C-alpha cells in the first residue's frame, strides 16, 4: 500500500516539489506530464536508428562483400614477409685441405622496405652508429627494386646494436635481424692480400660487366681471391616466407615455400699453409713481398706482402677511422706487393743477361773480363759494387760474385735489343696471368719503347745499366719468380696460379728451346752464389742444392736519392733474392723483396727459410709414410672411395 501511495504521489509531486500547487507557478502556462506529445518524435528517432544501422551495414557491405580480395591481399601483405636466406660463401682451403677462410654464425640487420618510414632513417642511423646521409642515399638508390627486397643495414651486430634493435621493436618494426654467415679471416693480416675481402657490392661494381648478375645489397669479393673467384665462392641466396606479427617477430615459417640457400663452392688453393706461415714470419717487421711457386706447374705455394691489413675489419662495415688508417698509410698496406710492386730487379737480372749472352752467341762461358772496380764506356765510368774490383772473372764467377763490371761489359757487347728480347722471353713486361686482380706488368726498356714513349733515340750509354738490372727495367716479385723458375726448368714457363684443379690450357705454358748446356752454366753460377762463397752465402742450406741470386736495386738515381734523403725518406736500396732448389729439376722457386733491405743477402735468408721449410716438410712426409705404410695404404683406399675426409 505504501508503495502504491508513493507512486501515486509521484505523478503529482515529483520532481522536485509540487509545482502545480505552488502559487509562484500559477501564471505559467498549463503543465503537462503525458508522453503523447513525443510519439511522433520517437518515431523519427526509430527511423533514424534504422537509417544509422543501414548506414553502418553499408560500410561492411562495401568492405566485406564488394571488395574482400583487396583487403585479403592487404592482410596477407601484413602477415607474410619474404626474407632472404643468405647463402654462405665457399670456404677457402690450402693445398692440403686445411681451412684458411671460414664463415662464422652472426646476425645481420635488415631494413625491410614494405613499411619503411623515411623519417625513421635518421634515428635508426644514429642508434646503429651509421651515417644517416649514406643510408638515405642507399634507400634512394634501391627505390626502383621491388618492395620486398630489404636493405642490408649492418653485419656482425654488436651487443649494443642488438640492444638498440630489441628496445625499439615497437618504434621501428622495419628492422629485422636475421642470421648470416660472414667471413672469418686469419688473424694479423696473414695472407690478407691473397685472400682479399668481401663487402657490399658498390654502385660502380654493379655498373661493370663483372658484377652484372648481382644486385644492390649483395656481398661480393672485392679484393684478392675473393674478388677473382667471386662467382665460384658466392652461393645462391634462398628465400623464406614467414608469418610475422606487427613487430616483425616471426611467428611461423613456411617450410614448404622455402627456397633454400645454396652455399658457395669451396676453393682449394695451391698455397701450402706451412710454407706460408714460414714466409709470413720471415717477413715480420719488414716491408716487401715473398712469392714461392712450383716451377713445374706454376702453383703458388706461398705469397706474402707486407705491410698487411686485417680483412676482418671489412666483413662488417669498416669504420671510417679504420679505412682512413689503411688508406692514408704511406706504406700502402692494401697493395699486394707480390704482384703489384714494380722495382728494378738489380742483380737478380744477371742470370738472364748471362743466358742471353750465351744463347745469342755474344759470349761463351769462358768469356773473361778484368774488373778493376769500374769500367768506362761511352765516356762514362760505371762502377762495380766491389770498389777494389774482382780481378779477372769468367762467366761463372761473374755470376757468383755478381760482378757489375763483367755484366756491363757483356751487356754492352750484346746490345739492348738482345737483352730486351730475353727479358721479354722470360715474361718481363707482361702479366704473368696469375689469378689475382690488379697485377702490374713492370717494364722492359728498349729503343722502340723509348721512341714510342719519349719520341727520342736510344742512347748507347743507356744499355749499360740495364745489364745489371737497373735503368728503366722494372719487374714484380711474381714475374721474377716465374722467370727464374722457368729458366731453371730449362726454358718452360708455367702461368703462376693460386687455385688448384684448374683445367690446364695451352696459354698456361710457354716454352723456348734453350740450349741445356747454357742453362746449366747459368744455374751452376747461381749454385755458386749460395754455396761457393758468393754474395748469397747466407742462404745456404746444408745438404741441399740450393741455387740463388742476390740483387740490390737502387731506387732512384744518385742525385734523386740525395734529394730524398734530405726529405728524410728512406733511400736504402731494395734487397732482392731469387732462389730455387734442387739445382736440377727444381721443385720450388722463391723470390723475396725486402724494401730498403740494403743488400740481397738480407733477402736471401727469407727465401732460405721458405725453401728449407718446403724440403723439411717433404722429408717429414716421406719419413711418416715409411713408418705408416700400412696406414697410408688404408688412407689411400679410403680416399679412392671418395669419402669426405681430407684431414
Amino acid at each position, binding site marked *: 500500500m505504501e508503495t502504491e501511495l508513493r*507512486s501515486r504521489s509521484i505523478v503529482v509531486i515529483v520532481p522536485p516539489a509540487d509545482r502545480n500547487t505552488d502559487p509562484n507557478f500559477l501564471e505559467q502556462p498549463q503543465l503537462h506530464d503525458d508522453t503523447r506529445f513525443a510519439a511522433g518524435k520517437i518515431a523519427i528517432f526509430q527511423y533514424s536508428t534504422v537509417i544509422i544501422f543501414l548506414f553502418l551495414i553499408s*560500410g561492411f557491405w562495401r568492405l566485406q562483400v564488394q571488395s574482400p580480395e583487396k583487403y585479403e591481399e592487404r592482410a596477407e601483405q601484413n602477415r607474410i614477409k619474404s626474407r632472404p636466406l643468405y647463402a654462405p660463401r665457399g670456404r677457402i682451403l690450402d693445398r692440403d685441405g686445411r681451412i684458411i677462410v671460414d664463415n662464422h654464425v652472426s646476425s645481420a640487420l635488415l631494413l625491410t622496405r614494405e613499411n619503411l618510414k623515411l623519417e625513421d632513417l635518421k634515428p635508426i642511423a644514429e642508434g646503429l652508429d651509421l651515417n644517416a646521409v649514406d643510408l638515405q642515399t642507399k634507400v634512394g638508390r634501391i627505390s626502383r627494386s621491388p618492395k620486398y627486397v630489404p636493405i642490408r643495414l649492418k653485419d656482425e651486430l654488436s651487443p649494443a646494436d642488438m640492444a638498440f634493435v630489441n628496445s625499439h621493436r615497437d618504434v621501428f618494426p622495419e628492422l629485422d635481424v636475421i642470421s648470416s654467415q660472414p667471413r672469418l679471416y686469419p688473424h694479423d693480416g696473414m695472407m690478407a692480400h691473397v685472400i682479399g675481402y668481401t663487402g657490399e657490392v658498390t654502385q660502380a661494381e654493379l655498373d661493370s660487366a663483372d658484377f652484372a648478375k648481382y644486385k644492390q645489397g649483395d656481398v661480393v669479393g672485392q679484393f684478392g681471391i675473393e674478388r677473382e673467384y667471386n662467382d665460384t665462392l658466392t652461393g645462391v641466396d634462398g628465400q623464406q616466407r614467414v608469418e610475422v606479427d606487427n613487430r616483425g617477430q616471426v611467428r611461423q615459417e613456411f617450410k614448404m615455400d622455402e627456397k633454400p640457400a645454396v652455399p658457395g663452392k669451396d676453393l682449394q688453393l695451391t698455397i701450402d699453409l706451412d710454407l706460408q706461415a714460414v714466409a709470413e714470419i720471415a717477413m715480420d717487421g719488414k716491408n716487401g713481398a715473398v712469392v714461392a711457386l712450383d716451377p713445374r706447374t706454376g702453383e703458388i705455394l706461398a705469397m706474402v706482402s707486407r705491410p698487411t691489413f686485417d680483412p676482418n675489419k671489412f666483413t662488417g662495415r669498416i669504420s671510417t677511422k679504420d679505412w682512413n688508417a689503411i688508406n692514408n698509410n704511406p706504406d700502402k698496406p692494401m697493395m699486394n706487393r707480390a704482384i703489384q710492386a714494380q722495382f728494378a730487379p738489380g742483380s737478380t737480372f744477371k742470370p738472364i743477361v748471362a743466358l742471353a749472352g750465351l744463347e745469342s752467341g755474344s759470349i761463351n762461358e769462358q768469356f773473361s773480363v778484368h774488373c778493376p772496380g769500374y769500367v768506362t764506356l761511352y765516356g762514362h765510368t760505371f762502377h762495380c759494387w766491389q770498389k777494389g774490383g774482382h780481378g779477372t772473372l769468367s762467366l761463372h764467377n761473374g755470376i757468383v760474385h755478381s760482378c757489375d763490371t763483367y755484366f756491363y761489359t757483356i751487356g754492352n757487347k750484346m746490345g739492348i735489343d738482345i737483352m730486351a728480347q730475353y727479358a721479354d722471353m722470360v715474361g718481363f713486361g707482361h702479366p704473368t696471368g696469375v689469378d689475382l686482380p690488379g697485377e702490374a706488368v713492370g717494364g722492359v726498356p728498349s729503343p722502340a719503347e723509348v721512341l714510342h714513349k719519349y719520341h727520342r733515340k736510344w742512347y748507347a750509354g743507356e744499355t749499360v745499366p740495364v745489364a745489371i738490372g737497373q735503368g728503366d727495367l722494372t719487374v714484380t716479385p711474381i714475374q721474377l719468380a716465374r722467370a727464374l723458375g722457368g729458366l731453371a726448368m730449362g726454358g718452360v714457363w708455367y702461368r703462376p696460379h693460386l687455385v688448384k684443379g684448374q683445367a690446364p690450357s695451352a696459354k698456361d705454358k710457354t716454352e723456348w728451346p734453350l740450349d741445356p748446356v747454357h742453362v746449366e752454366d747459368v744455374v751452376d753460377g747461381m749454385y755458386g752464389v749460395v754455396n761457393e762463397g758468393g754474395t748469397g752465402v747466407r742462404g745456404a742450406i746444408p745438404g741441399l742444392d740450393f741455387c740463388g741470386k742476390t740483387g740490390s736495386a737502387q731506387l732512384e738515381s744518385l742525385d734523386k736519392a740525395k734529394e730524398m734523403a734530405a726529405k728524410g725518406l728512406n733511400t736504402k736500396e731494395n734487397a732482392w733474392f731469387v732462389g730455387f732448389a734442387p739445382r736440377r729439376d727444381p721443385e720450388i722457386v722463391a723470390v723475396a723483396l725486402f724494401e730498403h733491405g740494403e743488400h740481397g743477402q738480407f733477402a736471401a735468408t727469407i727465401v732460405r727459410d721458405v725453401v728449407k721449410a718446403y724440403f723439411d716438410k717433404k722429408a717429414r712426409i716421406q719419413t711418416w709414410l715409411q713408418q705408416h705404410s700400412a696406414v697410408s695404404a688404408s688412407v689411400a683406399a679410403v680416399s679412392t672411395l671418395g669419402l669426405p675426409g681430407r684431414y
Partner: protein
Amino acid sequence: MPRYLATRDIDWTLLLIVLLICAVGILQIYSTTLGTNLHSAWWKQILYILSGLVLMGMVVPTDYHGMLHHVPMLYIGSTVALLGTFAIGEQVFGSRRWIPIPHTGINLQVSEFAKLVIILLVARYLTDLRKDELDVGEMLKLAGLVLIPTVLVFEQPDMGTALTYIAVLAGGVFIAGLHWKYILIAVLCVGITVPVGLHFLKDYQKARLTSFMDPDQDPQGAGWQVRQSQTAIGSGGMFGKGVTKGTQAQLHFLPVPDKDFVFSAFAEEHGFVGVVVVLALYFVMIMRIVQNAQTAPERAGMYICMGVAALLLSHILINVGMVVGLMPVTGIPLPFMSAGGSSIWTSFLALGLVNNVRLRRFVN
C-alpha cells in the same frame, strides 16, 4: 506486495539480447587475446558482466524518481570526480580518464558513469519544464549544464565520450520539442563552428580527422589504425576467417582488438554474416529500449529511456562507424562487447534504468 514490481515485468527480451551480445563479446575477447599476456581478459569480462547484472539488479528496485530528486548532488559529485581525474587520474595512452581504486587493480573511468548522470540530468530538466515545446533559453541552460562535464571529458582528452554526452543532450532536446527553425539554426551554427573548432583540436585529434577523410594517404601515421581495421574487416569477407583465425587481430596488426576495435576483430573472424547478426541484435536492443520509452508512465521515465537509447545508439554509431571507416577515430568502447569494467558496468546500469522505468509503467 506490489504487483508491478514482479520480476516477470523485467524486460527479459532486452536482457536476453544484451546477454547474447555479451557472449559474442566474450568469445571475441577470448579469441583475440589468445596467446597474449592479456588472455585473462575474457574471464575478467565474465566477472564484469556478472557484477554488471548485480548492479542492474540493485538499480531496478530503487525508484527512478528518487534518483531524479538527487540529480543536483549527482551532477555536482560527478563534475568533481571528473575534475579529480585531472589531479589523480592514471595517464594511459596520453589521456587521463581513469581513477585507480586502491587495492583492486581496477581503474574506474569516471566519464563512463557520468553518462548516467547526464541522462538523469536531461530527464529531470526536461520533465520539470512540462511544456510540449522547448524554447531556446531553456535549451541553452540545459546545454550549459551538460557542457561543463562535456568540456572536462573533452579535455582529458576523450573526444568520443564527450560526443556521447552531446548525443544524450541532443536526443533529449529533440524529444522535448525544439522548433524546426532552432534545429536549423543549430545545424548552421555547427557548420560554422566546426572549422573554427578544428583549430582548437589537439594534433592527434586533427590527425585522426584528416586520416578519416583519407586513410590511405598516410598509411603509417594516424590512418594506420583505420587502415588496419578496414583490412581486418574486408579480409573477413562474407563468412569470416573463423574464431582465432583472424590474422589481423591475432598478429596484432589491429590495434586494441579486445577493446575499441573488438568489432573489427569480430568482423574479421565472422564475416559479413556475423556482422549483420550482431548489428541486428543491437538494433533490436535499441528498439526495445525505445519501446520502453513509449510505454513509460510519464515524461521522466520516457526521457530516461530515450536518453539510454540515444547513448547506446551514439556509442554504436561512433564505435562501429569508426572501425569500418565511416567515422573518425575516437576511442570509445562498443557497449556490451568491448573488454573493460567501466563500460560494462555503465551499460548494465543504464539497462537497470530502463527496467526501472519499465517496472513502473502501469502506475497510472
